[in-house]
């Protein structure tokens, strides 16, 4: 009743402040429980100590003292009061000995009071391994000497419990030097716990240069690096030559090593065939010679001798086994095939002493057909050189003639014997005189005029075509003083044992026996 009268008496305007106050009172209780944005919590490792600090976002609210509680995530536990941080006026708390388990996630709660009234409350979560600010850098001093700079780092004697043996290895003191803008990191090896002072020497410095040093702990998260202020000193001169000499020597050694590596790599690649591939082509396929391309080498010309075959028709001579000296003046030249497979051809003619490549008997009469005498050699412009007065003086030597050609096996056996003397059918062909043996006709009448290719004396001569009435005389002449003769491989048996009436022909200057060419 009284309340209703009061309300009616006050009126609606007086009701508003009461509602506002009651609402504010209610909110103030709500905020401490769920408000985590009223302050900012930070976890810092300062001098190897775990420090939890907080800062109010609303600076208009200034509590007189604070109290800290905490709990953990892994278990369902009530908030625990931090005894050392109860009713404190500072805005930070040392939890080095309280938060010792790095695997746990801690939930702190800070409540700000003014008197007995809680003005602000804030909570947070911290997983010390990842949510901790990096270590503050330790104190250090630098001392400059004539040849080096010494950095003395002072660690705190008290190591926090959270930094056990495993954790200490995560943090390393790095010293940087700044010289002309270049930064060089040094990673000193710290043996044991970080409890003692540590001294590190920096040498190999450039003289007359200002060097600055900074020390910091390297956290796991590279984004969180807390560097110390720089301390600088000027490196004193006096060891300039030594440093420059050492630098020069080092540079030379480095270049040498690089060159050795490159050379060994190239040699290895070449050896396995990756570079400088070898072409195992025969020399004849080597087309990379410019001279060959520009001036292709012509094949060596074969020295050939032009041989002109003069057909001489003769009567067929019947072999009557008459060994009379009366020799037919007709120089029969019938091809005989020796047992050795050589085809013998009787040649007649003369060597023309002209020094020309080809020989022709045009100008040479045909003595064999008529006289049986060897014709005198006559100079001919085209005749081969046949030095020597005796045309048929030939020696079966291997030096004289170098002509080559194809010896016709069946020269002209099929031709008619219509060739006349002195002219008529002439066939010029090239003869490889190294493959034939040519017998020279002798001047003596008693000698067998018929020039025959040397054959085995004991062998039976088989006429190639005994019915032929003509014989082909193969006149071969060539350069040199000797008549052509077959090569060393050809059998040029020397009919020494053959009884012959030609043994009297020793009058010739050359060693002629039975008219065969002597090698």
């Amino acid at each position: 009743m009284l309340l209703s009268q009061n309300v009616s008496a006050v009126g609606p305007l007086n009701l508003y402040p009461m509602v506002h106050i009651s609402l504010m009172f209610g909110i103030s209780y709500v905020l401490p429980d769920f408000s985590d944005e009223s302050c900012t919590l930070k976890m810092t490792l300062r001098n190897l100590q775990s420090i939890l600090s907080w800062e109010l976002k609303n600076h208009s609210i200034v509590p007189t003292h604070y109290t800290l509680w905490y709990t953990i995530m892994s278990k369902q536990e009530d908030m625990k009061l931090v005894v050392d941080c109860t009713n404190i006026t500072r805005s930070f708390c040392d939890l080095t000995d309280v938060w010792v388990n790095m695997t746990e996630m801690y939930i702190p709660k800070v409540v700000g009071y003014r008197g007995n009234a809680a003005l602000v409350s804030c909570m947070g979560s911290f997983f010390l391994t990842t949510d901790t600010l990096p270590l503050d850098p330790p104190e250090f001093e630098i001392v400059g000497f004539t040849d080096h700079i010494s950095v003395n780092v002072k660690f705190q004697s008290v190591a926090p419990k959270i930094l056990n043996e495993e954790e200490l290895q995560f943090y390393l003191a790095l010293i940087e030097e700044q010289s002309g803008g270049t930064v060089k990191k040094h990673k000193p090896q710290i043996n044991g716990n970080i409890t003692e002072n540590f001294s590190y020497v920096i040498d190999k410095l450039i003289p007359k240069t200002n060097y600055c040093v900074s020390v910091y702990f390297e956290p796991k998260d590279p984004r969180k690096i807390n560097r110390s202020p720089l301390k600088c000193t000027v490196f004193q001169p006096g060891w300039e030559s030594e440093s420059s000499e050492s630098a020069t020597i080092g540079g030379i050694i480095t270049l040498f090593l690089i060159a050795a590596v490159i050379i060994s790599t190239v040699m290895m690649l070449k050896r396995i065939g990756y570079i400088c591939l070898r072409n195992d082509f025969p020399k004849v396929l080597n087309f990379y010679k410019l001279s060959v391309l520009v001036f292709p080498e012509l094949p060596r010309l074969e020295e050939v001798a032009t041989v002109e075959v003069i057909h001489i028709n003769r009567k067929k001579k019947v072999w009557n086994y008459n060994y009379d000296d009366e020799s037919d003046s007709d120089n029969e030249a019938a091809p005989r095939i020796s047992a050795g497979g050589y085809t013998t051809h009787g040649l007649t003619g003369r060597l023309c002493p002209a020094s020309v490549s080809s020989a022709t008997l045009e100008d040479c009469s045909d003595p064999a057909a008529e006289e049986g005498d060897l014709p005198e050699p006559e100079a001919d412009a085209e005749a081969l050189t046949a030095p020597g007065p005796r045309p048929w003086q030939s020696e079966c030597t291997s030096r004289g003639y170098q002509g080559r050609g194809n010896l016709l096996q069946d020269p002209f056996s099929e031709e008619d014997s219509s060739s006349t003397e002195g002219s008529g059918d002439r066939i010029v062909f090239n003869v490889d005189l190294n493959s034939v043996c040519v017998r020279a006709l002798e001047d003596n009448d008693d000698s067998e005029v018929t020039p025959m290719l040397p054959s085995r004396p004991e062998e039976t001569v088989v006429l190639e075509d005994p019915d032929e009435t003509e014989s082909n005389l193969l006149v071969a002449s060539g350069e040199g003083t000797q008549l052509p003769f077959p090569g060393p491989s050809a059998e040029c048996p020397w009919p020494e044992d053959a009884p012959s009436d030609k043994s009297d022909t020793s009058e010739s200057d050359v060693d002629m026996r039975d008219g065969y060419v002597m090698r």
Partner: protein
Amino acid sequence: MSVDPDVIRKCMWPVCLMGLFVTGILSLDCNLLNVHLRRVTWHNLSLLSRMSKSFPIECLRESKAFELPQEILSDTQPLTRDIKEAFYEMSRQAFHIFIQDTFKSTWEEKHLRQVQIGLDQQLQYLEQCLEEEEEENEDMREMAEDEWTQSGAPVPQLSNLELRRYFNRIDRFLKDKKYSHCAWEIVRVEIRRCFYFFHKFTALLRRK
């Protein structure tokens, strides 16, 4: 397509060299397994921390004790292979949890993918090295097991069983909470704690 035998012959030598180098590199990889595990585990741990800005305090009421089996790091001096097997079991179970497609908008997609990739990497490392070690030391392992059973010490596979139970509790918690936002946050914090626990475990591999 026919290949010139000369080309094959010329390429045989560098291919053989490359094969030897690759084999050497792979063999070196398992020798540095503790380094890889330490690095990869820490990387996964950092990813889990960055997935969420801060733990929502309102989810604190729903937290649960999952009882991480810390006894596997007790002073029983487990063998190197047992440590590797424990690592493999932990990685496999954690990968199974984070591969579930029930996150929705709880975390950023890229962070989740990175965690999955990191766990997959860890699994590959361990599979390769465990296979190689099994081929090489099969006889020695049998002898070691006989010694364990004779001395009465716990069978090494007990740690794997405890780990399976641990992750089974986590999985059941998620299902009971119907994969809520708070449930995922609580699981994230718990698995991060497990990663750090195993990160310290790698120190045992280094010492051995």
